[in-house]
């Protein structure tokens, strides 16, 4: 009954749920834009500690980029009706997603052992807060991947419009958090 509106006349070819997801992404983007601008403003005020990013962050970047690739592979396999690679790449993406979170955690530990504390200079605080909020959004993505895996393994394999659409939503969000991390890394490196 919740999807009665989806049967209404549609004035756009984009599925309303997909559009809602894009709107949510715009909202998340604003959150990181505001944190970035707060970062720049605070940095310009002086008393700002400069330090090197931990190497774990680069490993995280490789992991999450890989996960996007495997997820895309899973998606193309799904539409081509290839059940095995669809499931396999989906599971791989899920574990790469977990790997990203673990790698970020190792990165925080490295930072801490270098003496960069959450409580210390605001440059460190900003780094922890921004990467933490990002990881929270990645965890949301991992929850979506879990749902997708549930669909993949609990339901009988069948390529339907509805399942394709749902899988696309998961894909879009996951690529989005991936890009968001790439943006954050570049921002933290060059600002």
């Amino acid at each position, binding site marked *: 009954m*919740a999807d009665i509106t989806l049967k209404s*006349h549609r004035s756009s070819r984009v599925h309303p749920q997909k*559009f809602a997801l894009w709107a949510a992404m715009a909202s998340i983007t604003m959150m990181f834009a505001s944190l970035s601008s707060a970062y720049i403003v605070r940095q310009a005020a002086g008393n700002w500690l400069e330090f090197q990013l931990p190497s774990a962050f680069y490993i995280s970047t490789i992991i999450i980029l890989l996960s996007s690739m495997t997820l895309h592979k899973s998606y193309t396999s799904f539409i081509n009706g290839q059940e095995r690679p669809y499931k396999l790449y989906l599971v791989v993406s899920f574990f790469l997603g977990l790997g990203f979170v673990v790698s970020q955690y190792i990165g925080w530990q490295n930072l801490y052992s270098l003496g960069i504390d959450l409580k210390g200079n605001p440059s460190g605080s900003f780094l922890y807060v921004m990467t933490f909020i990002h990881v929270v959004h990645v965890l949301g993505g991992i929850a979506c991947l879990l749902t997708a895996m549930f669909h993949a393994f609990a339901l009988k394999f069948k390529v339907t419009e509805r399942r394709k659409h749902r899988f696309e939503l998961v894909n879009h969000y996951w690529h989005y958090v991936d890009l968001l991390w790439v943006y954050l890394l570049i921002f933290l490196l060059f600002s």
Partner: protein
Amino acid sequence: MADIITVDRDDVLLKKEGFDDHFHDHHHEDKYKSNFISHYIFSMDHKMIARQFLITGMLWAIIGAGMSIIFRLQLGFPDESLAWLKPLLGKWITINTETGMGSLQPEFYYALVTMHGTIIVFFVLTAGLSGTFSNLLIPLQLGARDMASPFLNMLSYWFFFMASVVMFYSLFLSTGPFSGGWTAYPPLSALPQASMGSGTGMTLWTISLVLFVVSVLLGGINYITTVLNLRTKGMTFWRMPLTIWAFFVTAILGLLSFPVLASGFFLLMCDRGLGTSFYLSEIFIQGSALDFAGGSPVLYQHLFWFLGHPEVYIIILPAMGLVSEVMAVHARKPIFGYKFMVYSILAIGFLSFIVWAHHMFMSGVNPFISNFFVVFTLIIAVPSAIKVFNWIATLYKGDLRLNTPMLFSIGFVSMFISGGLTGVFLGNSAIDIQQHDTYFVVAHFHIVMGIAAFFGMFAGVYHWYPKMFGRFMNETLGKIHFWATLIGAYAIFWPMHYLGLAGVPRRYYRFDSFDAFGSFGEMNMFITIAAIVVFFAQLLMVINFFYSMYYGKKMTTKNPWGATTLEWTTPIKAGHGNWPGKLPTVHRWPYDYGKDGKDFISQLEPMAEGETEAH
């Protein structure tokens, strides 16, 4: 006597021209109304959710306005005993054992002012106004069965409800609710030991507002998606009523600005709980120096006002949309300059994002940067003036029906002009040196976004009440409500301009102990009396609202106002899905009043031979 069956032209058109989405093939309705809980409480019907937002908003409005009466009593009658309020306020009234004089605790005065602001801005004028009417009108005026996601829509209301519960609970804390102002500037908001309300009160305030942000985002995502995706056949952008344009832009503003507030709050929570120094610098308090170093409270102000300024447009744009629609219907004329109205809404929406620092001219912002914000602030006067001109031009030579919704619409324009003009003063960073933090500011924003937004909301409530409850509100009570509110509101806020020009500061607990401000005692007394009168006039409206629900004049025709828009083509008691059969097909813009000698032409009516579309 045989029943006379009249067939509405609307029904004929719906049948003949409508868009068949095979809605009636599925028996959704029965499932929906299966029980009390899914119909009245956890409802996913946008019309029910709209009423939930409205009634919750009304309860908050009574609480918020009631608080202002208490602190106005303190300001207007500082030497009178408030002992009679002891049963309500308990320990916040201290009674002198010798004289029997009861006085309001200064800490609680600040808590009242803070809660008044928070409640009215967020819970009443954001949730109660845009939540109510976006929900009610977006699907109805666009010809959709419901919102894009009825489930998220339901969640949106319940997040607001949870935010309300948390905030309401905080009113009863032994240390009182948060008392550092609705803007929650650090350090008062960041240091739990800074004041009584900064401890648990502030914690609950933050939790409540985070829940509220979630509610706004869920609602906003839904409104935007619905407008972009679920318009019925023929409903192009340029055929949308101005209400929908206003709600659409409002939702975009909310979607882009509330996340910024959320990140501001996140950093604030880190400062409060985790010892970071985003907003706190070296502070010595209660006999000891704290560890914080190098933070900047101005950073918080930037993040807060990046939401805070769009927020005032989130409040006023829906009111503008409602007024435009109500005014066209009751002036029996097309709205003047429809496209310019739309462009003005878009321009206001865009400009609202680049003027936030005009709230911070006196906070130590670089004066050269201030110039940038002065220029854009003053430019907002242009689209605002276009809108005012168009409203007045709509009234000109109109066949005016001076009923309650129309009176409130005209009242809105009056308030918007009066309050908007003082905005031009305050937008100048040089004049702001004198005026900032005085009663001039209080007068300005109360008139332009407080009273004006309330007027827009009242116009909407009186106008769409029949759509919501199938009955009319009482006209006589409505008119008394209007005149008492119009005259009363000016009586409250007009004198405050003089106080402000004389330099009387905001936020003071009492003025009689200052030589410079002691001479304004009578004026403050006058303002307080006016405020009490206006408060009771609002209760009249509340009584009218609930009384009319059961005993009001019944609606006998579908389209009592003779309006062109789609919401009046649904049955009087529209079920879930809004139209029982086909969805309407739209053939024209929503303002065909007095065209070709006809009183009005519904949006359903196909173009006649050789007829050209207006606008």
